[in-house]
């Protein structure tokens, strides 16, 4: 018990201490969180009427961002898998950071869903045995289950590895017995959360733009592009500001994954657009709306073409070794661009235009409100704050700066 308490205390104090820039970053996030409590309070007390959604476009930014967090959470296994499946020594150490990303992003996604729900106070209706789950029919039930299991699998993995390393009892042989299966399960579970999320969308026959079989493939490819972008950024920062050694080979593997994920995204888009546009039936109406607008409603048009061009340009750019190997300049910039492009693709290409025309032929543009935007920023701030603190503490343990010292000095 004493060991656990000292683990928590040492981990925490290492995580919140750092240079001026680090502290400024934490304070910036805290500022958003504290001010965000106000907008969150407004939404919780007034209801979803304060966001931009309507009966025509019932899914808001929270839902779109939730899909994106599932991308990144699923992609985190790409950091874990090489170490365990291919026994890459340079990556086995880093697996725990992948798991932290997975856990934080699943938790962020669940927070987005809480903002999305009309009655978050009735969440207990979804607790097994307490409420009533419409199993095995409702896709949302599957998604809830897989997301929660993924959250706890990663929570177990992270706390176990970090604690054992902290007390210096990290023994790979003893580990293999029960811990490796847990990690393997988590690796398999990663794509699962994503496939389920894709099915929540594609199971709606009336959503012409969504009821496509390539949805899970497209999602996995986008996960492969957005997740490793964040991982590269994080690894480059860790490498620069801590003693933890991360090989170039790790970064290169991640940028290779990003490149070919972008390639698959292009293929998926092409397949989807060709299938819709060749026959150009009413199923292509939402796509036509995204591409060319409808009777002067053309809010999504620049987003559509902007995203498509960004994806193609990023693909070409990351194939170029000069950019891919420019660890301190072009690569991080490209990673930020890809991360943001996939993030913006969610509401502006995938979610909002899909609702026009509505089943009764209405075309709608979605305009997010300030409160909605701020609540999204708030949720991201909570996510990034947890990510920063957990990664910082984990790096301390991995480098050996944070470790259990027997209370000799006290005795």
């Amino acid at each position, binding site marked *: 018990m004493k060991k656990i308490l000292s683990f928590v205390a040492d981990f925490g104090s290492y995580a919140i201490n750092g240079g001026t820039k680090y502290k400024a970053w934490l304070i910036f996030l805290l500022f958003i969180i504290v001010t965000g409590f106000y907008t969150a309070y407004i939404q919780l*007390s007034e209801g979803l009427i304060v966001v931009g*959604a309507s009966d025509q476009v019932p899914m808001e930014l929270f839902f779109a961002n939730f899909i994106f967090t599932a991308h990144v959470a699923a992609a985190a296994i790409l950091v874990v898998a090489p170490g365990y499946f291919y026994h890459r020594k340079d990556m086995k150490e880093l697996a725990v950071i992948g798991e932290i990303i997975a856990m934080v992003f699943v938790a962020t996604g669940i927070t987005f869903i809480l903002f999305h*729900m009309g009655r978050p*106070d009735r969440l207990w209706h979804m607790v097994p045995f307490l409420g009533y789950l*419409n199993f095995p029919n*409702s896709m949302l039930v599957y998604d809830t289950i897989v997301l929660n299991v993924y959250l706890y699998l990663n929570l177990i993995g992270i706390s176990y590895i970090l604690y054992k390393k902290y007390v210096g009892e990290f023994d790979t042989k003893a580990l293999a017995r029960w811990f490796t299966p847990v990690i393997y399960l988590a690796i398999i579970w990663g794509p699962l959360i994503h496939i389920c999320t894709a099915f929540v969308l594609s*199971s709606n026959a*009336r959503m012409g733009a969504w009821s496509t079989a390539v949805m899970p493939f497209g999602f996995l490819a986008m996960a492969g592009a957005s997740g490793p972008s964040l991982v590269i950024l994080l690894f480059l920062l860790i490498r620069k500001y801590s003693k933890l050694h991360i090989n170039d080979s790790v970064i290169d593997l991640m940028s290779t994954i990003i490149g070919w994920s972008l390639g698959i995204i292009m293929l998926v888009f092409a397949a989807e657009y060709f299938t819709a546009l060749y026959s150009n039936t009413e199923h292509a109406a939402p796509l036509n709306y995204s591409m060319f607008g409808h009777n002067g409603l053309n809010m999504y048009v620049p987003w559509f073409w902007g995203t498509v061009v960004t994806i193609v340009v990023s693909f070409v750019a990351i194939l170029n070794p000069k950019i891919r190997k420019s660890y301190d300049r072009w690569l991080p910039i490209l990673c930020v661009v890809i991360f943001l492009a996939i993030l913006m693709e969610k509401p502006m290409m995938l979610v909002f235009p899909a609702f026009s*025309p509505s089943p009764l032929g209405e075309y709608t543009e979605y305009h997010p409100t300030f409160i909605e935007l701020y609540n999204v920023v708030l949720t991201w701030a909570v996510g990034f704050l947890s990510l920063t603190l957990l990664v910082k503490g984990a790096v301390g343990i991995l480098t050996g700066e944070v470790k259990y010292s027997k209370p000799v000095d006290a005795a």
Partner: protein
Amino acid sequence: MSDDRAETNNKKDDVTTSRRDFLKNIGIAGASTLMAGSASAGVPADSPDPDAESTAAEWLQGHFVLMSEEDKKEAINRLEKRYTAKYDKKTTVANTPPLEGVLFGYALNIGKCIGCRRCVHACVQENNQSRTNPVIHWIQVMKIPKGNFAFTADKLNDGYPKSSAFGDYGVQVGGNAYAPVGGLATEHAQSYYSADEMVPDKDYFYVPVQCQQCEKPPCVKACPVRATFRDPNGVVVIDYNWCIGCRMCQLACPYQARRFNWGEPNLPPEEMNPKTHYFGNRPRMRGVMEKCTFCVQRTREGRNPACLEACPVGARKFGNLLDPESDVRKILATKKVFRFKEEMSTYPKFFYYIG
């Protein structure tokens, strides 16, 4: 799952009881704090609060169908007390059971409909929808151009390709493509109108759309908590107290029939209809879904839905699909009947016909 039986059998359910007890043990006090901002927000500050304890009890109640008879009575008393205080008029919340051996069906004559929207407003009055912010209408009347007149000789040579070895007239696509010819295509439908619009407009026909009461409703399949389900008469209803507001049903519905209470509903007390049913027109709360129930509060008592009574041209017919003598069955047997969006395979029990 054995839920089908559970829904129809309303027997006392041990599991549900123990759930309730468990929740009670969590502590009413904690629950009422949680609820302070939500369910009780409907209670005006100046009226005597029908006590926080009843609000908490409402929050703790299970799915209505799975409750014991005793708990149902209690729940209904609680609601009646709350509504009576809030709207300052004696309100009843019925729990009239479904009728025996009845499958409700509806038929609408689009040849007769003149687009007056009286059904829409009768529905709003009967079913206590929110009047402003959000405005909720369960019936949406599509106005669809009759077409035909769109064909012109001017476009004879406008096709694609403009010229080819086969001639200069659009071998592949004719110049008169892309023009509506009526039918139930929603592509050129308009649903919004000004209050002083004269109806019927001779260039249009009108198609009122409300919940189609599908035999295979995608909304029921999508609901994660079974808050919405088919009742034994084939009507899809919602337990407003069980709905979690995730809007998966709205996403699944191909008829845009479901309406969400985006904010606290605004129902002026003087316009409130105090004769309500638990699954029907009782006042809703913020953050839950609602939709047409074929006026469950009326039809379970053998009356017609309010929209039918309001229709000035007799375009609407309602009845028991199992009774060969009912209006709907006679229409099915003798008229040209079709279902809206048949390709969705939802098997609506709302039929459209002509003539």
